[in-house]
């Protein structure tokens, strides 16, 4: 915030950064070759839905747009317990580029109608040969990525992250994606769709 914004007591909504998402397909290849993690084919965008008719209309347009293509499977919207909406796109596991294009379409639609400030993160889940799931998370406001790896084989109520794997993934992807350097921003997203 600038000096004048402080004086005026005004915070401008932070605009999202979208460009880095297109680097995901090449990072997906790296993940597959080095760690055997494959894209699951789905991906999601997490955002805060504004109250009111305007936002509902935009969201309906996005879902309609993505569902209109007969080759692409469905798109669904769900709510989480923190009041954020997840728009899940199901695509082809072998074509992460198409998935990224779809996710980007969601972002640009929201931004066009000036709801871009409500974008929280994007999640692209990966699955290993042993079935363990790892999420590649994109923070819109920072324009950076981090990995979220829930510890597999835990009971229903237990929540534990595999920090070592997450750090390893950061180092693996550091050359290809802008990784989030501040570990405090690596927020857990328990129960996110696809994980």
């Amino acid at each position: 915030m600038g000096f004048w914004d402080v004086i005026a007591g005004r915070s401008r909504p932070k605009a999202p950064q979208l460009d880095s998402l297109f680097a995901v397909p090449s990072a997906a290849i790296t993940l597959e070759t080095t760690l055997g993690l494959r894209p699951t084919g789905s991906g999601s965008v997490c955002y805060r839905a504004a109250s009111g008719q305007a936002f509902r209309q935009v969201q309906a347009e996005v879902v309609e747009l993505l569902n209109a293509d007969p080759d692409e499977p469905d798109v669904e919207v769900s709510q989480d317990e923190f009041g954020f909406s997840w728009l899940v796109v199901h695509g082809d596991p072998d074509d992460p580029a198409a998935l990224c294009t779809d996710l980007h379409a969601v972002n640009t639609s929201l931004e066009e109608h000036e709801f871009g400030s409500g974008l929280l993160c994007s999640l692209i889940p990966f699955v290993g040969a042993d079935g363990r799931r790892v999420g590649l998370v994109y923070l819109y406001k920072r324009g950076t990525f981090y990995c979220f790896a829930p510890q597999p084989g835990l009971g229903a109520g237990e929540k534990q992250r595999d920090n070592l794997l997450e750090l390893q993934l950061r180092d693996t992807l550091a050359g290809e994606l802008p990784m989030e350097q501040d570990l405090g921003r690596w927020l857990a997203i328990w129960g996110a769709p696809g994980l």
Partner: protein
Amino acid sequence: MARTRFVGDAGLTARMTLVMFLLGGLFVALVVVLMSLFWSAGGVGIAVLIGVGGLGLVWFQWYKSDTVAMKAMGAREVSPEQAPELHTMIDRLCALADMPKPRVGIADTDLPNAFATGRSPQRSVVVVTTGILKRLNAEELEGVLAHELSHVAHRDVLVMTFASSAGILAGMLTRGAQYGAIFGGGRRDNNNGGLPIWLVVLLVSLVTYAVSFVLLKLLSRYRELSADRAGAYLTMKPEALASALQKITGEINTIPDRDLRASQAMNAFFIAPAVRGVSLRTLTSTHPTLEQRLEQLAKVRAELDRTA
């Protein structure tokens, strides 16, 4: 799109800037008057001493604001393990606003309240009371937290402490002038024939204090409205903050819940609301009235609701 959804409130900004300008002017005027007074009386050393002391106090208030406020409220800091929901909520709001996460505190009191303090966004703390946690649902609590985080982002502690420096200095001078009256009153004053200097200082500082008191309260109300506005845009749910405010202010909403048909028979006995507008209460209150705040939130909501 021609017009952005996130319009600032130009009128609010203009009024706020004017008040801050007046407060700054008041401070300068006070210093100038005092300097000239002490200069003529030959006591510049004392004037500088008082000035440095006053500003030191202002600086200390700001620098130690987090610890002092937390002690005053009996609040304790909580870790993510102790209050996971609260922390996750703040985590997400900070990610939305792209700001550093403040420390989180809880005060064990049934009074529904929340506050944010700290010398900078990096060293700030957001405190909620157990009373507010009990009364509000998750959505409403999020609205309140977004309001407090906006205070942090707007650096309201810094702004308000700066703005209060004239008042603090005047307060110190009033006290000093009283001592002057006790110890110096018996002596013959050397400013030829006029009022004794301690009396002039007392009068000047009392007037300064009174003016700065009213202006500060006005500024505080504007800052609250700004934080409401920014918070509502952050969560994109102005109605959540509105319902939280209705619950915690304890003020009776001007918009009644009663059914119109049910109250027909009683209407004759109702006393019309007293003169609206300026009253002593609205002049000295640090927060705007519920009505003003709801009106502004309704505007935010209309802005979000506007289809292209």
